[in-house]
């Protein structure tokens, strides 16, 4: 146990150093130019962070889910784009790691990922499904040879042009119903990405997430064997909501720190005088504390439920509601904190070239409620609430 704790602590410390020294230095430029945060991702690669979640016996770091979540938080404090790229990659890695049963091809894949520090992007959303990740139009389709293929029109693929591999949802076969999905892992050199759109957004600009028409050819063993519904409930959805939320918590925490620096500077200028902004900051602190409490308690519940035999609890509707609520609450609370800090700092916080500027934090955090739209999650929850008993 203590070895695992030490391992996590050393990993988080290494990522914090990268966040402070590399990601922070390029964050403004990454945002301004809407470019991929390659310096920070390269540094994460060099530190072996892309395989942190892979078990040690497969060549990875053996870091726990809380360790990865902490790393998302540390990166989120310095560069939202780096943090979101890291989080999305770790969602894919964590999902594979948790569903390795009966998939020897994926064990081999994880060894390669650890050796080469490969970066995985995901292709989950699709034009025509109304934002419902639980349905696909694209289908895994046989070819004349031994390979399978798929074609999918994706409205956004984060860092698609910068990844080594892609994890794509599609229907099991051309005859399968929309909800009968599988996950396909294809290498970038097996996948054609035809650009279909731009990524000139108000925030999260460095994630470089334009649309693509994705065409992949792959072997049957590149399809994850575990049933997609199990993968969704036990891993893909809760891990997404947890890692994203830690990124958002990081963004909000840095905004708060900037607010605090501003208030302290004001207090030092006029010792003994009341600082009106301090009251506002106190209010923002309680908002930040609520965000942190929600994010951390969800992580704790996920770890507990994952440790239970069969992960039975994660299959229940109560669990779906729990981790949906994490996403809803955190995505709405993080921009509230950033907005509160902006009001505390005032016009200086509105300036892009001020050390107290929080415009980037606010813009980046506004993506939270849109990536898997909260309105869609509310409509799912509304249905589940009709039947779930314990909330």
């Amino acid at each position, binding site marked *: 146990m203590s070895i695992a704790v030490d391992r996590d602590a050393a990993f988080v410390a290494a990522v914090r150093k990268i966040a402070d020294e590399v990601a922070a230095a390029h964050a403004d430029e990454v945002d301004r130019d809407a470019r991929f945060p390659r310096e920070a991702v390269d540094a994460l690669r060099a530190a072996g962070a892309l395989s942190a979640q892979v078990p040690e016996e497969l060549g990875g770091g053996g870091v726990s889910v809380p360790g990865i979540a902490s790393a998302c938080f540390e990166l989120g404090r310095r560069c939202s784009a780096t943090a979101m790229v890291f989080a999305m990659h770790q969602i894919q890695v964590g999902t594979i790691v948790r569903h390795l049963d009966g998939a020897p091809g994926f064990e081999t894949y994880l060894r390669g990922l650890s050796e080469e520090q490969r970066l995985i992007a995901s292709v989950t959303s699709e034009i025509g499904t109304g934002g419902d990740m*639980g*349905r696909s139009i694209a289908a895994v389709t046989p070819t004349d040879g031994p390979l399978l293929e798929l074609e999918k029109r994706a409205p956004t693929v984060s860092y698609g042009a910068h990844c080594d591999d892609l994890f794509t949802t599609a229907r099991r076969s051309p005859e*399968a*119903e*929309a*909800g*009968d999905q599988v996950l396909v892992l294809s290498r970038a050199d097996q996948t054609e990405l035809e650009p279909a759109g731009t990524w000139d957004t108000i925030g999260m600009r460095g994630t470089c997430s334009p649309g693509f028409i994705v065409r992949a050819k792959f072997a049957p063993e590149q399809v994850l064997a575990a049933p997609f*519904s199990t993968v969704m*409930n036990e891993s893909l959805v809760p891990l997404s909501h947890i890692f994203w939320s830690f990124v958002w918590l990081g963004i909000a925490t840095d905004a708060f720190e900037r607010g605090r620096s501003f208030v302290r500077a004001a207090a030092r200028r006029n010792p003994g005088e009341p600082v009106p902004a301090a009251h506002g900051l106190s209010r923002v602190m309680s908002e930040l504390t609520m965000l942190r409490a929600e994010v951390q308690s969800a992580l704790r519940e996920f770890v507990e439920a994952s440790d239970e035999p069969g992960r*039975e609890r994660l*299959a*229940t*509707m*109560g669990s779906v509601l729990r981790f949906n609520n994490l996403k809803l609450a955190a995505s709405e609370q993080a921009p509230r904190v950033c907005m509160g800090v902006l009001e505390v700092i005032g016009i200086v916080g509105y300036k892009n070239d001020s050390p107290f500027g929080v415009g980037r934090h606010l813009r980046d955090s506004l993506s939270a409620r849109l990536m898997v739209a909260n309105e869609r999650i509310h409509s*799912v929850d509304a*249905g*589940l609430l*009709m*039947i*779930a*008993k*314990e909330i």
Partner: protein
Amino acid sequence: MSALAEEIRRVLRDHARLPVDVDSLDDQADLFRAGMSSHASVNVMLALEDAFDIEFPDSMLKRSVFESVAGIDAAVQELQKRAA
């Protein structure tokens, strides 16, 4: 077919919105794979609670329980036994 299975199939016919006739599926067939959406499955659960005057506890509210006629049959029998 038992009266219970008959009634379960009636509920599925009315609420599961399957693209195929429920009677073309056997008791073990995966209803989700046959096209039942998660939204429709909630309506199925509500209708089952109504039809059998039962309440599914949260521990039973999961996909594996509702993914086949046989799974629903076992769950309803279990709850009826508990109530008796």
